[in-house]
């Protein structure tokens, strides 16, 4: 008897979504797809260059490997108007706070690209007392670019990978530090 009533309750609780819910869900999905399409094709970077990788980052924006082709516009404006932070160069322990400060000023949705060996594992300075050995110790990184320093074409590839991740809606934030 008891078992039967429980089954009945379960049957009561379950219901198929109504037409209104379906339309709402579809519309939400559609809007999300459109927004993600726009986000993927329009990544304006903050150029956080601290050492040699920054030189390659400049080449990425310049004539030969043209970042503007993929919508990566080096506007050079404030973090408030940017979507992407290109952390290129060694991050020392003193710089870590400044990096986090810049990162927190960017409005979400925002993405992080860690450029070069120093930002992946510490690179040359992996055993140093004064560098952050890999910036994923302090923030969530979406794409890593290996190399010491990487070639400008690798930046291009990283942006392509990031765009595919965004457009497939695969970027999740476990980082509480979102604005």
């Amino acid at each position, binding site marked *: 008897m008891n078992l039967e009533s429980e089954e009945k309750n379960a049957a009561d609780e379950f219901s198929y979504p109504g037409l209104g819910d379906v339309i709402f869900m579809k519309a939400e999905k559609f809007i999300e797809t459109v*927004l993600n399409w*726009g986000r*993927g094709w329009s990544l304006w970077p903050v150029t956080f260059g601290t050492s040699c990788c920054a030189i390659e980052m400049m080449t990425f924006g310049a004539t030969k490997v*043209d970042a*503007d*082709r993929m*919508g990566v*516009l080096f506007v050079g404006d404030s973090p*408030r108007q940017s979507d992407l932070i290109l952390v290129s160069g060694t991050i020392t322990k003193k710089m870590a706070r400044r990096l986090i400060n810049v990162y927190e000023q960017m409005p979400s*949705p925002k993405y992080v690209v860690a450029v070069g060996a120093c930002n992946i594992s510490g690179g040359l300075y992996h055993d140093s007392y004064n560098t952050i050995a890999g910036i994923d110790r302090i923030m969530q990184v979406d794409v890593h670019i290996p190399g010491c320093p990487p070639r400008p074409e690798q930046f291009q590839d990283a942006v392509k990978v990031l765009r595919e991740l965004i457009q497939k809606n695969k970027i999740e934030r476990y980082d509480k530090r979102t604005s």
Partner: protein
Amino acid sequence: MFSYVYGVLSRFFSAPADLIVTLIVMLLVPLTLVAIIPVIIGWVDRKYGARIQSRWGPTYVGPFGILQNVADVIKLIGKRVITTNVDRLSYSFVPIALTAASFLIVVLIPWGAPGLYILDIPYNLLFIYVLMAVSPLLILLAGWSENNKYSIIGGFRGATQIATYELTLIITILSVAMLSGSYNISDIVASQKHLWYVVYLPITFLMFVVAGYAVIERDPFDIPEATQELLAGWKIEYSGLRYGMFLLSDYIKMFALSMLTVYLFFGGWNGPLLPAFAWFWIKTIIAMMILLTPRWVYPRLRIDQLVKFGWNWMLPLSILNLLVVGAVLLV
């Protein structure tokens, strides 16, 4: 324009509905038109600048990257707005007011043929002055409301620059209005039927372009938002859709300036063989491509150089020009 649209639509709708439908159409069509134009101009600007720097510019989004700025606008719509310690009311008010003012300029200008107005008022050139005179106050308000050192410096610079060059702009437009005897753009165009005003007033034309450039804050006069000194100047705290509105209003002002140049100095829609509409758009596109060039070619001036040049040379020269035009008209 209104009566024409009303005439077409009143065949399909009965008495009270036709007026309402006409009003909605009259509101929506210009709004979409005015919103699409800066997106297209933005694409042209990016592509043209990229070719000057021997790059390719946007390539992948749509054919020839034509949807690049659509993607930018969609991203800016979906972007979150974060602020710290701003004055909420003026912070939210400025982008709306500034964009509305620059959209209204385009609404008041005829669109390339006699009688093709969105809104027809007899003194439309005078009203365009007023809309331009609003912007220094709004820029100062934006700079102050953001509560940031860069924004307040940018706000003061913007107000100084625009207040300096607006005077010159108004006086140069005044000498054109004196020559034609009217403040209506249609009349000014009609009086240029035989000879363009750029032949009569070459110095006025040059002053108009320089002052117009300074007023719409385009490179090389983008001192209020000088990227290397002030990051984004008075726009620094704006993000998301509000920043997008500033970008739209920039390009709309660019478009209005090239339209005004054609109307005031290059004979508007006058021309042989081709219809008026075609002549006007050919001239406007050529004017716009020429006006887009200095941004990618010339370096930025300093604020003191610009203001000194404005007060010491541009303003006396424009007043002298006005006096000369008046004397010629009297004799």
